[in-house]
C-alpha cells in the first residue's frame, strides 16, 4: 500500500494524550494521520489538506465541536466521527443534526472506532463514485436503483409503497451515516412532522419485513437507540 492511497484522517482533540494514542494506533493501522488541538486549526488543516475522514472532539478550547461540524458542512462532505465524553442523547442528536456522520462516547474501544472509520470511509468512497450521484446501491443480496425506483432482493423485485421507497432511498443515499429521527422525518415526510416518531417506527418495521432476512436482527436498517437509524453497507 503506498502513501497516495492511504486514507488521510484528521484528528481534532485538545487532549494531548488521546491525540498521541490515536496517532500511534491509526498510523499502525496504515492511515495517514494529522492532528489539531484547536477548532480553528482543525478547520484550516481540513481546508489545506482535505482529509478522507475527520475525528472530532466536542470540547475544544476555542470553539465548540458542533460549530466546527457546522462550518465544515458548509463546504465539505467529508465524513465526521464525533468523539466526546458528552453522553446525553441530546448532545448526540445535536452533533448529528449539525452534520456529523457518527458519534462515539469516550471512553471507547479502539476496535469500535476502527469499525466506524471503515463504515464511514466505505460510504464516502461509494458516494464519491459517479460524481457523488450514485444511482444504484448494492449491499449483500439487496440492490436499490434510486433512478428507476426499483428495489430487488436476491434478483427478485420487492414491491414498496411510495413512502417506503422514499424512506429507503434517503437512508441508502446516506449509507453509513447515523440519521436522527428528526432528519429522517423532515426529509421523508415533512418538517412539521418531526415529532411523529411513530410514523418512522411503523415504516421501518414494514421495510425490515420486506428487506431483512430476520427483521428482528436487522443487517441493513440498524437502530441507533434514542437517536435514529443508520443504513449499513456490508
Amino acid at each position: 500500500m503506498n502513501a497516495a492511497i492511504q486514507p488521510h484522517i484528521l484528528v481534532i482533540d485538545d487532549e494531548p494524550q488521546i491525540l498521541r494514542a490515536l496517532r500511534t494506533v491509526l498510523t499502525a493501522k496504515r492511515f495517514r494521520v494529522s492532528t489539531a488541538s484547536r477548532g480553528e486549526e482543525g478547520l484550516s488543516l481540513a481546508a489545506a489538506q482535505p482529509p478522507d475522514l475527520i475525528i472530532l472532539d466536542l470540547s475544544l478550547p476555542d470553539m465548540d465541536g458542533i460549530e466546527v461540524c457546522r462550518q465544515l458542512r458548509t463546504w465539505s462532505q467529508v465524513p465526521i466521527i464525533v468523539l466526546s465524553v458528552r453522553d446525553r442523547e441530546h448532545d448526540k442528536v445535536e452533533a448529528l443534526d449539525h452534520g456529523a456522520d457518527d458519534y462515539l462516547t469516550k471512553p471507547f474501544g479502539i476496535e469500535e472506532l476502527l469499525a466506524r472509520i471503515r463504515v464511514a470511509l466505505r460510504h464516502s468512497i461509494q458516494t464519491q463514485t459517479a460524481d457523488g450521484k450514485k444511482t444504484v446501491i448494492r449491499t449483500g443480496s439487496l440492490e436499490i436503483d434510486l433512478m428507476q425506483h426499483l428495489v430487488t432482493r436476491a434478483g427478485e423485485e420487492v414491491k414498496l409503497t411510495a413512502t417506503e421507497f422514499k424512506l429507503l432511498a434517503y437512508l441508502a443515499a446516506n449509507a453509513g451515516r447515523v440519521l436522527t429521527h428528526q432528519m429522517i422525518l423532515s426529509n421523508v415526510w415533512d418538517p412539521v412532522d418531526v415529532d411523529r416518531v411513530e410514523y418512522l417506527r411503523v415504516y421501518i418495521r414494514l421495510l425490515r419485513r420486506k428487506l431483512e432476512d430476520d427483521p428482528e436482527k436487522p443487517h441493513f436498517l440498524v437502530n441507533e437507540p434514542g437517536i435514529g437509524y443508520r443504513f449499513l453497507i456490508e
Partner: protein
Amino acid sequence: MKQDFYLYNASNRINPWPYLQVLVGIFIMTAFLVLVKQWISPTSLALLYLLPIGLGASYYGLGPGLFAAILAFLAFNFFFVEPLYSLFVHRTQDLIGLVVFLGTAFAIGQGFGMARQNLEKAQAREREAILLSEFSSELADLHDGKGIVQALERKVLETFQVQRVEVILEAKHTPDTGASETGREGRTKDAANPGNVGAHSPRPARPDLLAPLQTPRGMIGEIRIWRFNSPFNASEQRLLQTFASQACLAFERTRLTLAENRARVLEESDRLKTSLLSSVSHEFRTPLATIKASVTALHSETDSLDPEASGELLAAIEEETDHLNLLVGNLLDMSRIESGVLQPKRSWNVLSEIVAGVLHRMQSFTKSHTIQVDISEDLPLVSVDYLQLEQVFANLISNSIKFSPVDTVILISAGRQSDQSILVQVKNQGPGVSEEYLERIFDKFFRVTAAERVSGIGLGLSICKGIIQAHGGRIWAENQPDGFAYFFTLPLTWEGDIQREELE
C-alpha cells in the same frame, strides 16, 4: 388567647375641662349683660348670648356647644325675662322669644360643633395617614425581625405618648432573633429611658391597651401599652391596630425573604453538586478514553503494532493513570477540607526538594513547557506536610501549563519574605485573569471559562487554598506585565512549634 383582632380600653371618661370653660364663658357674659342691660334691648341681649355658644361649639365641639346653649337659655330666662330671678315665664310673647332663642342656640351650637368635629376627624385622618406612610416607608427598609420590633416600639412611643410599650413575639416566629429560654421574646421600652430595653421600672400588672400581631399563619405576638394619664380613644385604637397589621406584613415579608434566600442557597449548592458531578465525570473519562483506546489497541492485535508504537501506548497509559491519581487526590483532599479533617502532618522539609520531587513526577506532563526553578540555597527548613505541599505545587504547575501557550516558561521561585515567613511564586506567561475574578479563582468549582471548554473540575486552586490556610499561610494570584503568577506564603514558625520550643 383570642384569635380575632381585639382592643380594649381601660376607661372611657368624658373630659370635663371644655365644659368648665363654657360654664365660665356663659357666667362672664351673664355678669356683663346684667351690668349693661338698661342700655340694651332684650333682643340684643339674646343675640349676645349666641356669642359664647358659637365660640364654645367651634372650639370644643358638639357637646360643649349644646351645653352652652342650655346654660345660656337658663341664664337668659333667669336674669332677663319677667319675672326676673325665676325660671317662670308669664307673657306668651316672652315664652315664644325663649323658645326661639333655645332653638337658635341649639342650631348654632350643633352647626359649629359638627363643623368642629368634622375638621377634627379630617385632621386626625390626615395625621394617621402621615404616620402610617412614615411607618410603612420605615418598615420597607428593614429586613430583620429585631429592626421591625424596634421601629414598632419607637413609633408607638412617639405616636401615643405612652409610658411603656412591650412587643412580645412568640419565639418560634422569630427565626433571626433566636428562641429565648422561656420560649417568648419580650422587649420592653420605657418612655422614661428609651433605648433601655427591659429596664427595671416597676411593671404594672395589666396593660392599658393590647393589640395582637396577627398574620395568615396565626398570632405571632402582641403589643402591650401602658398609659396612665389618659385613656385611648377609638381612632388611637384603630391606629394601633393598623400599626400592628403593618408590622405583621413586614414580619411576613422578612420571613418570606429569609425563606427565599435559604431556597436560593440550597439551589446554588445543588447546582454546584451537579456541576461537580458533570465535571468529575468529564474529567475522569478523558484520561480513561486514552487508557481504554490504548489498552484495546494493545490487547486486540499486538502483532500488528511495532514495539515503538506499543511503547508509546504504554507510556500514554502510565501518564494518564498518574493524571487520574492526581484527580482522585484532589477529590479526596477536597472532601477532607470540607469535613475539616485536613490536618497537616508537619515535618521539617527542604522546599527545593519538594519542588524537585513534583517536577520529577510530572516530567512527562511538563514537556510542553520550560520549567525554571529559582529557590535560594540559604532558605531555612520549612515545617510543612510534604504530600500536601507537593499537591499544591502539582496543582499550580498543572494550572500554569493548562493556561499558558506551549513552549513558554514557567518560573518557580521562593525566598524569605520576612523573619516570620517565606514567599513562593509560580509564574507563567499565559494570559491574565480579569481583576474581578482574581479572588474567586480560589473558590470551589469556579472557572473563568465555560465549563465545557477547558478541562478541570475547578478544584485545584481551592485545594491549594485549603492546604495553605491549614499551614497558616496565604495564597493569592496577580496579573503581571508579562504573564500571570500565583503566590503563597508559609510561616517559618507556627503555634505547635513555639509550644514545643517552650517545652524544651
